[in-house]
């Protein structure tokens, strides 16, 4: 369909897409802008777009109040940790499902996904008791465990759809060439699936980063990630829009930037085999 698109048509597309894109993005933009305003300017009517006195005061206040970097570091450790461990468990499982499919494979996969439908609130108290029992409360280890289990079904599914696209021939060739199962996975499967693994990794980092129920309920101070950081701004006294915006910006910025930079991988991985 390489017929010429008239410039008018392209211009209309462009304008429409940009308007919609900006509308969708606007709340985030507005939050970022607000974070640079004084509290008074933040609630001023009519709203001030760029014509306000920019200030970094909110960021300093927020940083003074809670040590952002510790929360940030917890978030990094927890989300990366759970994703990496999840991958280590999921790669063999996905290998088995993709390359040695049995009659039950599909059912096992669907069952795995259905465990994600367990409403977390329903099992908080049992988990809390277990965690207390094993001394996992307020530890990063504890959160890594929970988030790994939470996201494992998704990781398995994503890897499974990815692996299915890898021709069996190549694994068989490796086998003929004398590779053991372990070597087959390490030297052939994993390197070939790098794009898929990367996008799985990304999506799960994002999901873990944003997970707000378990991270909030199973931590106190030591292991609390950014979700807990944000929770302390949810309803403070007095005017707080600017401070809230600053805290929000700080909480979402890392993942937003990561997401933007790795957009392509993410999009490819997200398709869950929906696109053949």
């Amino acid at each position, binding site marked *: 369909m390489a017929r010429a698109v008239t410039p008018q048509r392209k211009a209309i597309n462009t304008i429409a897409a940009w308007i919609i894109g900006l509308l969708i993005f606007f709340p985030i933009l507005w939050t970022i802008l607000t974070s640079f305003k004084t509290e008074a300017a933040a609630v001023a009517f009519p709203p001030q777009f760029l014509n306000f006195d920019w200030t970094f005061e909110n960021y300093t206040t927020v940083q003074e109040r809670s040590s952002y970097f510790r929360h940030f570091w917890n978030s990094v450790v927890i989300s990366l940790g759970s994703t990496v461990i999840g991958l280590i468990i999921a790669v063999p499982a996905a290998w088995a499902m993709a390359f040695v499919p049995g009659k039950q494979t599909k059912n096992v996969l669907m069952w795995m996904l259905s465990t994600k439908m367990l409403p977390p609130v329903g099992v908080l108290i049992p988990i809390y008791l277990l965690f207390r029992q094993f001394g996992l409360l307020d530890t990063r280890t504890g959160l890594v465990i929970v988030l790994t289990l939470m996201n494992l079904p998704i990781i398995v599914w994503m890897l499974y759809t990815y692996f299915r696209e890898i021709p069996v021939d190549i694994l068989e060739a490796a086998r003929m060439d004398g590779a053991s199962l372990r070597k087959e996975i390490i030297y052939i499967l994993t390197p070939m699936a790098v794009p898929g693994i990367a996008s799985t990794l990304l999506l799960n980092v994002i999901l873990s980063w944003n997970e707000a129920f378990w991270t909030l309920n199973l931590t106190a101070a030591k292991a609390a990630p950014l979700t807990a950081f944000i929770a302390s701004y949810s309803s*403070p006294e007095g005017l707080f829009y600017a401070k809230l915006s600053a805290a929000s910006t700080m909480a979402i910025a890392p993942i937003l930037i990561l997401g933007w930079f790795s957009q392509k991988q993410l999009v490819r991985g997200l398709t869950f085999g929906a696109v053949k």
Partner: protein
Amino acid sequence: QTLTIATVNNGDMIRMQGLTDDFTSEHPDIQLEWVTLEENVLRQRVTTDIATNGGQYDVITIGNYEVPIWANQQWLAPLEDMPEDYDADDLLPAIAGGLSVDGTLYAAPFYGESAMVMYRTDLAEEAGIDMPDQPTWTDVMAAAEAFNDPDNGTYGICLRGKAGWGENMAFITAMSNSYGARWFDMDWQPQFDSPEWTATLSDYLNMMENYGPPGAANNGFNENLALFQQGRCGIWIDATVAASFVTDPDESTVADNVGFAQFPNKDGVDNHGNWLWSWNLAIPSSSGNVEAAKQFVAWATSKGYTDLVAAEEGWRAAPPGTRTSLYENAEYQDAAPFAAMTLESIDAVDTNAPSVQEIPYTGAQFVSIPEFQGIGTAVGQAFSAALAGQMDAEAALSQAQQITTQEMTASGYIE
């Protein structure tokens, strides 16, 4: 040693976090870790932890509602052997009484509050209204009507509407007390079918509908504070601590124009609501650092801390409502125009007889039984729904009656 301290994200607590250098320099071996959370989340986290013996926290911030209940469960370490200079006798008796079980203190008050009326003197002047020091609800309603000017973004009265036993139910319970209503009769039968409750709720809804701000059903203390600071409320009836914020010229656009009055009563009912709340520091018995925690609690609720705040931020910012000595301090009286009214309000509270009728419970703007959190919140939701226009007062009350009866039956209070 590291102490993990759970606090509410309100201004006084956050200020305390900024001043901890003073403590850590005195106690170099003690490190402090802060968990700052919104009130509801904090309560849920702390309760889960203490009830399951989780031991995550060494110092917790809890209200005077929980203290006696939890102390009875042996969940709190008694605050005996406090350091010499702590001077427990200096605590306001109404406050200290609520935090003691059998004469032993189980939590140290960080600040205390009752409720009072805050209003805009500039608007009152404009409208030619004279707010008495002890207004009745009739006075308040008349003033609210006069102040209401929604076209210019000023609303007559701001009251709590957000559902929650510590949010709208705190206010409505206090209001009902002042209307002569009670939660339960002596057989623990809920009383929402009484005429006093009908009067309370319909007056509340009327005021809010006619003179309240939009979205009131989602407004709690913080939202109303923000509104009042922006000059959007003519009257705000809420906790006395608010006074120091609304008069803070850095944050409040109406700092110079705030007047104070006692919590209203209904004509003929001698009850000013009996609102008493304090945020207190307590030590879970599951903590492994009880001694260090005591050091910290003592520091944070000491006279010395008050002086420290005064030195750093001025007297007006001193945590109010806990110590007699503060109210005797002339500097404080000068800096805090609301001091007298605050003390008067607190002194007027009798937590043993919050209602004028006979009741089987103690409490103030709450009922001091463990089930109250659940019941209060469920009832609060019904009232909030009424405020949002989803049902009328009558339906809300009968729903409240039904919920409460069910819960009380389930918990074995009534057959």
